[in-house]
């Protein structure tokens, strides 16, 4: 059992950090597994105003911290990029110690760190080993998924779903907001002119997937796998 536990047996450790992923042969099921997006992508429309893609099984960590200058330095070395301290901003790094990483501001003491699923435990471990002081880092990979939506009508679809102003002058590429989405919520990040990522909770994923299909109907929805 030693392979799964770093700290559980070390009773004096302040925090518990464990690998939560099984060996690669056990396939994970993303929150939209049941929707069989692969065959929707194959048999569904190939043209339309809104495009949809689930970035599934990603690694997502919630960092809570009011970082001191010292902590910020350590975090920068671990992430390969400085924490975005400006509200509603995000940063990405392609060559961080854990590969491609995106760091998104959530609140003055909260960030969301996104990377490939297999790297989450590595990052958790390096935080545990290197970052001192008060903070919390929580793995939320299983409770979260990412919808990538794009296309020439993507803003129209989003305007039906969220009260946030999405005009390019107010919502440039890189901006990130946590907000209301339909009758649920989402963290919305503009990753390109006509492309957004929605970070949503697992249990709401099916509702939001139905919602997006419905809201996109007048524009045509193309699903990618």
């Amino acid at each position, binding site marked *: 059992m030693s392979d799964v536990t770093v700290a559980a047996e070390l*009773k004096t450790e302040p925090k518990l950090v464990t690998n939560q992923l099984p060996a690669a042969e056990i396939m994970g*099921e993303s929150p939209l597994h049941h929707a069989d997006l692969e065959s929707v992508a194959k048999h569904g429309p190939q043209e339309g105003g809104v495009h949809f893609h689930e970035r599934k099984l990603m690694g997502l960590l919630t960092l809570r911290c009011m970082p001191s200058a010292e902590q910020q330095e350590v975090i920068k070395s671990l992430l390969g990029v400085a924490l975005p301290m400006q509200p509603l901003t995000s940063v990405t790094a392609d060559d961080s110690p854990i590969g491609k990483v995106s760091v998104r501001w959530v609140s003055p003491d909260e960030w969301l760190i996104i990377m490939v699923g297999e790297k989450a435990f590595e990052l958790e471990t390096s935080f545990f080993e290197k970052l001192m002081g008060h903070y919390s880092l929580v793995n939320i990979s*299983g409770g979260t998924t990412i919808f990538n939506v794009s296309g020439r009508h993507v803003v129209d679809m989003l305007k*039906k779903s969220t*009260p946030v*102003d999405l005009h390019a002058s107010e919502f440039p590429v890189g901006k990130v907001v946590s907000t209301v989405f339909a009758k649920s919520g989402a963290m919305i990040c503009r990753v390109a002119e006509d492309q957004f990522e929605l970070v949503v909770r697992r*249990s709401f994923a099916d509702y939001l997937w*139905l*919602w997006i299909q419905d809201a996109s109907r007048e524009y045509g929805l193309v699903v990618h796998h």
Partner: protein
Amino acid sequence: MTQDLSKQSNRLQEGGRIDRAKPLTFTYNGKQYKGFEGDTLASALLANGVDIVGRSFKYSRPRGIVAAGAEEPNAIMQIGSTEATQIPNVRATQQSLYAGLVASSTNGWPNVDMDLMGLVGKVGGKMMPPGFYYKTFMYPKSMWETYESYIRKAAGLGRAPKENDPDIYDKMNQHCDLLIVGAGPAGLAAALSAARAGARVIIADEQSEFGGSLLSSKETLNGKPAAEWVAEVVQELSGCADVLMLPNSQVNGYHDHNFLTIQQHCTDQFADRAPNGQIAQRLHRVRAKWVILATGAHERPLVYGNNDIPGCMVANAVSTYINRYGVVPGKDLVLMTSNDNAYRAALDWHDAGRRVVAIVDSRKNPKGTFVEAARERGISILVGSGVIEAHGNKRVTGVSIAPLNEAGDAVVGPIVKMAADTVATSGGWSPVIHLSCHTGARPVWNDDILGFTPGKTYQKQLTAGAINGAFSTAAALSEGFSAASDALSHLGLAKPERVLPEAEQIQESKAMALFHLPHTKPTSKAPKQFVDYQNDVTAAGIELACREGFESIEHVKRYTAMGFGTDQGKLGNINGMAIAAKILKQTIPQTGTTIFRPNYTPVTFGAIAGRDCGELFDPKRYTAMHAWHVERGAKFEDVGQWKRAWYYPKGNETMQEALNRECLATRESVGILDASTLGKIDIQGKDAREFLGRVYTNAWAKLPVGKCRYGLMCGEDGMVFDDGVTSCLAENHFLMTTTTGGAARVLSWLEIYHQTEWPELEVYFTSVTDHWSTMTISGPNSRKLLEKLTDYDVSKDNMAFMDWKSMTVAGVPARVFRISFTGELSFEINVQANYGMHVWKALFEQGEEFNLTPYGTETMHILRAEKGFIIAGQDTDGSVHPFDLGMSWAVSMQKPFSFIGKRGMQREDCVRENRKQLVGLKTIDPNVVLPEGAQGVFDPKAPIPMPMVGHVTSSYWSANLNRSVAMGFVKGGLDKMGQKVFYPLADGRVIEAEICSPVFLDPKGERQHV
């Protein structure tokens, strides 16, 4: 039935904005008619000479089209060619004509032309004075339903479809720098200026085309027909990326902080059903940095005898039908006016080649551009006179005209009768201030324009054009530009160049304040003089209300029902106030006005619901194993938004049979519950332990790593609101669980205390509810099952009750908690949710030899009730503290910090004798299951009302005990063990029960410790 379809007797050969090359066939009250593209339903009906469009509400009098816009009170239609596409309450003046449109009048039963109610109406009218509802129908109260159905049927306010609406309705959130309401001259001038300055602009207008009054007059701009300028502006605006133009769109509500709602008719203006995939109506929810109200004005009709006979119209509507739709709604016109402006109706009528019988002007000496134009055409003008009465039944046949005194309130000479089929009247213009009122602004009376203008506002709102009393086109254009300039400077944008078209110079002489024409008889005896057509409120009715002592205009409104119709009294309210003011011998500003509320015009339920209907009505939350439950045939229960498996019937099992099987299998071998919906909160920080001690009632200081503990959470009042197990993962790291329904509330609870009371505590909370899939295996064979899936030593010695361990289950890293909500040996397995289904299925693969049985929430409830475990929210209701629950063991009064709830539960009322306490209830007849909610009494023979001593909170059939089990509150119950309590039921039965310990099974708790 069939008519000559080409015959549109009132249609002009040329002119108007209709396309005569595109005839459209439509049906009204079962008959087919023809109109043209560009018509409204109202203009098409008038073109076809349809006089009667409804019957009045109270008196059942025939009514015709009065106006040409949103203010129309009579032509209220039911639209729809199929049952599913029925829309009630549509104003014919606002409904674009389309091929195949099916409309019917809604007032009039059984039909508008031959009305049985007419007879009743003539008699009933006498019986229906103002205050009619209050006076008559409230008594006896029991008869109200009878009265109501009679009134509704007779009033015919339209009906909802009986089938589901097949169309799609939608909502869209919009943001802009500037929202301009109204696309008349003021609105267009403002939009153009703002668009040129680069502002984000939304301009909305309720009409199918932009242009407003410019489309209805013969005015010129820059020497060309005004419509040409409109077309140029529309073209320029449509080329601006940041300008959103919304025709067919009513701005219906103006709410706080410049939030406005706009109902856009997307396809229902040209089709009965939206073409596939298209949106029928869209509600725009707009947040505007600035708003310009350029909503124009409504012309006021005058109040005179029989002013509701079809053929009586507002003057401006006559011009609109002629100029915009090429329809002259009659042959011989009498125009009655108190101002110059209305002369245009007579000029247009005359120029259309029909006869103007006379212009009757209440003023002694009118002069001005339009007056002169009338004289030039040789139209007879009777000055210092008034139309005091119209004659006719289903259509006007003539009028009585009399000379008036200077004040216009007495007849001072002989009556002249003239034949005519149309009476157009104008008492001046009322600015459309409705939206400004929505945010609470009190309208202000302006004597210069004889109307109310918008009052002081706290919104970022500007007004332009006729809404301010700037009635001329030149003034409206100028005000539109100025308002835009002001808005742009507030927004920090560059001011635009002043480029406005040149409007005609028109001289108008002063208008006279005239609302209600006198009659030779007193008002109460004169023929009915209608103020509010929709609610049949007359001048006599208002007089009566005032005489009966209603002096506030708000009371007069409610007593007479003036302005209570779907038109909100757009035409009649000012006249009504003027009449009340006169009777009360005060001025109009002293009398005041009633306030308009949202919505400006009726909004369909579809637009309000949007796409939040059907499957999308409310989010449905699913666990990672949901598909398995569905496949297994589970019945589901809603817990908050979660869909939880309720029970899993096999074959033809009844619910009770399934529950019995699930309960027995769990206690005899092993059952499994999907518990993923429980709230889970990751808590980290060196003060985590201290924080837990403050929010839970029990002690946390010494909980060792690897251990779990049950805790109760109370409010400051000392009352329990949630409970759950919290585990110590590491020295500064805990996992808290909450009830399924309480998860969000508990997280907010922790945050508010941390952020506002104890920010010095170093602790962070993160929801991990969705991250972990939780499956509870419970029963004597649960350990054997777990052993088949893990190498870890889960024996009693290595993993005791209330321990948790990290281990691998079915190849997946898991956190397993040895906690129990059933009283059995139990393991709660938590794995990362993407692997929940894998582990769940693996448990079933290995569980066959133990008859592993899935159970749902109902069996969970039964099993815990057998053990006397509470469910927060079912056995608590916000009025019980831990001691009431007999859970003093979960409260540590010795903790150094005064935990939340401690002080509250020590209040005088909380420590008194005889509080209701939770106890077990054993029915004397073991086969009887007490109904939950039943109220207990100590003496079933006591006279009614019997003193009630507490209710049943949980009650089930226990297959394991072969009897019923129940819990409930009983006054002083903990000291009454063995005593009897009785439950008299509504069906006459009285169930007798004995007060006992709530722990019905395994009172020593041996089963969970094995």
